[in-house]
């Protein structure tokens, strides 16, 4: 069987065309293409390009959302195969919006970008209590924790969560990154987070740097 042309997968993720992304993936898998190859050679680069375009104001949240959906549509088919093959992700991230905070648009974009960067992402949703971050990070043996906050009233939950990691004696097992509109590098330093990213696209290089 001839190897199918996989460029359309890259293009479909980049243009946010979920239907095509899924169809090409289906074809490729049935033609025997390695699932990992699809991820590493097409989807990760496509999401990388999405991030680059977002950073330089060629793409905006709508494009990011659509690309993330296209990626997810393809990943749904690939993920079970990856798990069965024992392939290791770039890292494992536990992500959530902190306690008291229900804003998740930014957090979801960060999660999608990290997923598109080859990470396994465990999304705890919104209003996540500190204990939950600690519990799941341990249980899933995550090496990264990502927190988002959009309210000045909930920023202190980030500090409380970092303290909960310390209290549980597992602070040095994870790198902790934070972000969200009111967050600054200064705040990250102040509460002892390992890193801060201003944008969703910036979260991927930050994760790579922290987990290197």
């Amino acid at each position, binding site marked *: 069987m001839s190897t199918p042309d996989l460029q359309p997968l890259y293009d479909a993720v980049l243009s946010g065309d979920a239907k095509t992304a899924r169809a090409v993936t289906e074809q490729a898998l049935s033609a025997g293409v390695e699932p990992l190859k699809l991820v590493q050679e097409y989807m990760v680069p496509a999401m990388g390009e999405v991030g680059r375009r977002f950073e330089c104001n060629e793409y*905006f*949240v709508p*494009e990011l959302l659509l690309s993330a959906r296209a990626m997810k549509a393809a990943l749904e088919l690939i993920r079970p195969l990856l798990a069965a093959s024992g392939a290791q992700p770039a890292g494992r991230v536990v992500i959530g919006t902190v306690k008291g905070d*229900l804003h998740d*648009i930014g957090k979801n974009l960060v999660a999608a970008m990290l997923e598109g960067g080859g990470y396994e992402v465990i999304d705890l949703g919104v209003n996540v209590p500190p204990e939950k971050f600690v519990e799941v990070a341990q249980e899933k043996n995550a090496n990264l924790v990502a927190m988002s906050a959009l309210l000045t009233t909930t920023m202190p939950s980030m500090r409380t969560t970092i303290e909960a990691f310390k209290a549980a004696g597992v602070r040095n097992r994870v790198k902790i990154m934070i972000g969200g509109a009111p967050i600054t590098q200064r705040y990250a330093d102040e509460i002892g987070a390992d890193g801060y990213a201003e944008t969703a696209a910036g979260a991927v290089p930050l994760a790579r740097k922290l987990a290197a």
Partner: protein
Amino acid sequence: MNTEELYQQRLRRYLTALRNERPDKIPIRPFVAEFTAKYAGFTCQQVAHDFNLAFEAAVRCARDFDWDAVVPNMVYVWTGLTQAAGLRYYGIPGIHVPHTTGFNYIEPPEEEAFMREDEYDALIADPTAFLYEVWLPRVSTEIVKPGQPATYRSHLALVKSAMAMMVYFNAFGPQIQRLRTECGTVSAIAGIFKAPFDILADKLRGYVGLTLDMARQPDTVLRACEALMPHLAHVGLTTADPAKQVPIGLWMHRGCVPFVNPAQFRSHYWPTLKPCIEEFWRHGHQTMFYAEGKWDAHLDDFATLPERSIIFHVDQGDIFLAHRKLHHKFALSGGIPNVLLSYGQPEEVRAYCKKVIDEVAREGGYILDAGAIMQDDTSIENLRALTDFAREYGVYSGAPTDGPLLRPCDGADVSELVGLSDRPAPRVRPGVCLPWEAKLKELPPLSGDVDLLRRVWENVDALGNTYIWQLLLSF
């Protein structure tokens, strides 16, 4: 100086700045929400659930701080009303969210959006009917859909929430009066308005749903925005300050880059917002653009509005850029970061205020405020530092303190403005639920003062219209 003299002095100061001119001092107009509870010794739960306590908290702040204008109750959503209506999209402190927080708007997940993607045509055909028939039963745990068996609780929810709304709105007059007579403080805004595109995202399709619709059915979305325009503008006009002194509040949520891309802003958000703002200005009402988040990408578009027709409020955007691009036409407000007011030191607050005053307020036309509404994390000490510093440093020389009191609209030439006047009238007029013409067909031949019969029918029908559009816009 007695309180009325103080009020007059502050009113003049505020109006002069709204006119983008130089008052005697920089007006201070902080949008204090749950901050008022913290200051007055109430809990966030108390001010959300008992509006009389919220009013009292606002009065105590206005009495103690030298502020020129405040909102009579910035913890605006009275959860007693939302509970009566059974609104799903509010968390009530102590019931759905911790009692230590204020009211919390909760957006439904994408698949439970209050309007489905295939319901645009129904919305467009008659927005008011759509809100009653489709939207209200969906957003309420109590109110049943037309066609379903009526229930006692459904009737109760309607009657109680409508009467609660009346009670609440009627309480604003005395509250505004209290601010004037007890504190000498001006009520900062009057009336409510939201952009058609924002309302679709906030209360109907949800942000993600609307984003997908913009990819799949952009023309339908545009028609829906256009269909909403006259109705939303009607709410703005009928709730605006009859004296035409203070602006209508426009709460701008998600119509900016990066929530939309620049093309979507140009095709949908702006063309369905701008005519409404011009319509308000045609009627002598200024609009306060409360630009939540960052709107830096759109300042050139805003600059195309008629001079003085808006004041531009800066949240996380670049206030210095806004000043460069807009100051020649409009006054600005805000720009002091909430993070600084909550977690900074008083000297940092003073330094930041100095920088803003030096660069933005030199020629007047600036109103001091934080970027976003201030919740209970805002430090009392820092807000005091802001106030004291502005009073010391924010003094202009040579401003007239008497002469006629000019409103923002005085002297404006609006004769060329089109606003909404060139648009086809919607099938059901804004402000109307059941038109008199339709009702008339059911009635026996009329006698006596037919005009009286029509007028009273229409006035009472308008209350039904107020109820549903206020639920949509304010609650």
